[in-house]
């Protein structure tokens, strides 16, 4: 299998004259975890529904390996919607088999795969239970299985981790890791920035129907780096207050956070200056958190609009 690429190109979608998505464009490479981020109502769900072909864009196109979405079979896509929905009265295995067959699996194959996944998620004893007898977390696992079962080329998960306990979060992460290794396309949408920071390789931030940030996570972080450093020592670092070349952001007794006034200045000279007066125990280049970047960007955009 060659390299998978999912491209969203200049997509517009209006609902009753209100734009839900405007000029949405991004590429998702196979083998990377793509994070689709944004506040509530930004247009994430609309974007995902368009990729799933549940709704059709008004303008623009969605391509998988240069083939238009419309001409692709649905069974190459797997979807976990944000709002979890299952048939309350249905029996777990029967329902999973039904979803599997809808994606062109044979009944037998669907059954086998469903049991395999149930076993992996530690739920094999619930094979013949009814959905409404399961706890919420278990129901969510059933939904994962429904999305994974037919081994799709494109997997879209909306808020996959909410409602899962830490153990199951790890299991899910392992499953996603395996999936990634097959160089398939994985799109995750979430509000939880820490979550996104941990698992995404590439992020796309949408706000008010538009893309405001799109790129590899490392590049974005680099670009938004504040050039801040933290030094820690056993003895007092108060003498740093008199350094003219730095701006002090946070001053503790033995720990100082600061930025360099001149970006081009080398940090090594400064370090020597500190070292002459105190032992440096720890030096850290402060990475901006995705959370901070998210808030900063959204605030910037609202300011621009004003």
């Amino acid at each position, binding site marked *: 299998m060659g390299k998978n690429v999912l491209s969203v190109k200049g997509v517009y979608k209006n609902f009753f004259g209100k734009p839900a998505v405007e000029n949405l464009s991004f590429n998702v490479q196979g083998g990377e975890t793509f994070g689709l981020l944004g506040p509530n109502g930004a247009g994430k769900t609309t974007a995902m*529904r368009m990729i*799933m072909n549940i709704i059709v864009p008004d303008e623009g196109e969605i391509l998988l390996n240069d083939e238009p979405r419309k001409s692709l079979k649905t069974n190459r896509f797997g979807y976990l919607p944000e709002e979890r929905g299952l048939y309350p009265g249905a029996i777990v295995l029967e329902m999973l088999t039904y979803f599997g067959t809808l*994606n062109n699996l044979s009944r037998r194959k669907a059954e086998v795969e469903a049991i395999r996944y149930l076993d992996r998620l530690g739920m094999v004893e619930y094979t013949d239970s009814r959905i409404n007898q399961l706890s919420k977390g278990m129901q969510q696992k059933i939904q994962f299985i429904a999305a994974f079962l037919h081994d799709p080329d494109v997997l879209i998960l909306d808020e996959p981790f909410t409602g899962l306990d830490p153990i199951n979060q790890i299991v899910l992460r392992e499953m996603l890791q395996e999936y990634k290794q097959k160089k398939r396309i994985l799109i995750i949408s979430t509000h939880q920035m820490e979550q996104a920071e941990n698992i995404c390789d590439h992020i796309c931030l949408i706000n008010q129907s538009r893309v405001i940030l799109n790129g590899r996570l490392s590049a974005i972080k680099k670009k938004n780096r504040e050039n801040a450093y933290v030094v820690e020592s056993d003895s007092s670092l108060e003498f740093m207050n008199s350094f003219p070349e730095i701006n002090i952001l946070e001053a503790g007794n033995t720990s100082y956070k600061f930025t360099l006034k001149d970006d081009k200045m080398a940090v090594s000279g400064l370090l020597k200056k500190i070292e002459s007066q105190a032992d440096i125990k720890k030096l850290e280049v402060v990475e901006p958190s995705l959370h901070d970047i998210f808030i900063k960007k959204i605030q910037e955009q609202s300011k621009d609009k004003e």
Partner: protein
Amino acid sequence: MKNLFRIARWEFITRFRSRSFLFNTFISPLLFTAVITLPILFFSYTPEVSTKLVGVIDLSGKDLAKDLQKRLNRKYRLENSSREYVILKVSVNNSQPYKEVLAEYRDAVHYRDSVTMVYNRIKEQRTEYYKNTHIPNREYFLKTSYETLQTSREEKELAEIELEGYKTALDSMYKFEAQKTADSLLASDVLNTYLLFPDDFTSRGILEYHSKNPGDLRETERFEKILQSIIIEKRILEDNVGRPKVKKWLSPIKIQKYQLFPDGQTEWNFYAQFYGPLIGVFLLFMAVFTSGGYLFSSVLLEKSNRVIEVLLSYASSRQLMGGKILGLGFLGLVQVLTWLTVAALLAVSNIIPVSKINYMNFTNALYFLIYFSLGYLFYGAIFITIGSISSNEYDAQQINQMLRTIAIFPVLLSLVVLAEPNADWIRVLSWIPFLTPSFMIMRIPLSGIPITGDIYLTIIIMLVSIVLVILIAGRMFRAATLMQGKRPAFSEIMHWIRVK
């Protein structure tokens, strides 16, 4: 296309195994049939459990009790062939006040008798003296006895007046005491009822019916009929007409009804002709609304618990809608065929006398299937539309209820349809797609003449309406099911219908 069948299979199997399907297929038709037929059975066929004691107080002096008992015996028998009614003449002989009045009455009778005797004797003697002119002192005797005669006559007349008074007292005492006895017997449930015939019963024809439950129409009707013929017979007999003649005149009549069909006449039976089509309409309604209701709740459920989002990502909305209609339609067919099989089994085993009910034939079974399918598709598409635009179950159920009311409305007119299945206004009503299946299912068996023209016309009307509602449903389904939380405005609905 494969997904359409997979969806159909899923919908069919999950509903087929549900308890509600079992209930709607077997229990509710049984219940309905029971509910509408039981009152008939109670009213006309229930065998009486025990003999009823009917008291009679007869002041008319015509000995009506004997005649009444004779005729009741002839007509009404219990299952074990013993009498259903036993007539009991209410006796007052043990009542003290009556005894006293009776004793006084008897004294008065004695007194009158003795006075009369005296008077008669004097009269006889005087007659003898008149005839025999040779008796000495004849003149003198005639003269003196005349005065005695006058006095005794006066005495006699007075005694008779007195006796009349005693008799009236006795009669009213008899009525009073008899009624007192009868009332106490009625109160202690010895008697079921008692009848009181006043002395002028034969002329005025009014009697009293005393009972704890005078609302028992069936029983009063029986007594009325029998006593009517008894009194007529008595009146005629009083005019010196021979008994055999009276019997001949009074022999009862019975109406037998026949219905004209193109292939001959068939004896008409109200229960079979009326309740059969009524049960038919009910079954049709049940079938349409069982499957249609499932269609409705299926859409509503998937919309409210958001399974729809997963389903729409795996299958197109057309497949989803088509699969549902197909699967649940098949479910409805299974239900209808189950009923037809049961009906056929009952017919073969002669529990239903098919030979007497001429609408029970294969052509009409086919019409039943056709109108079921049309009704199901029509209402089903409407249900899908409502299910997809409803924002909550409560709203949706209300519309559902309204549709049911509309669909069952023809049943309210069933008696009119029975009388005039092909009246113009009923024909026009049966062209309204909402009402077509129900009306046609009643009209086809009830109509004496074939209504093939109307059948074709209504089928075409239904097909056109179905195409229309399915087109609308298809457009609404996709757009509206993804919405949630809010009820769409009318303008939005129109927008969905217009925009592809």
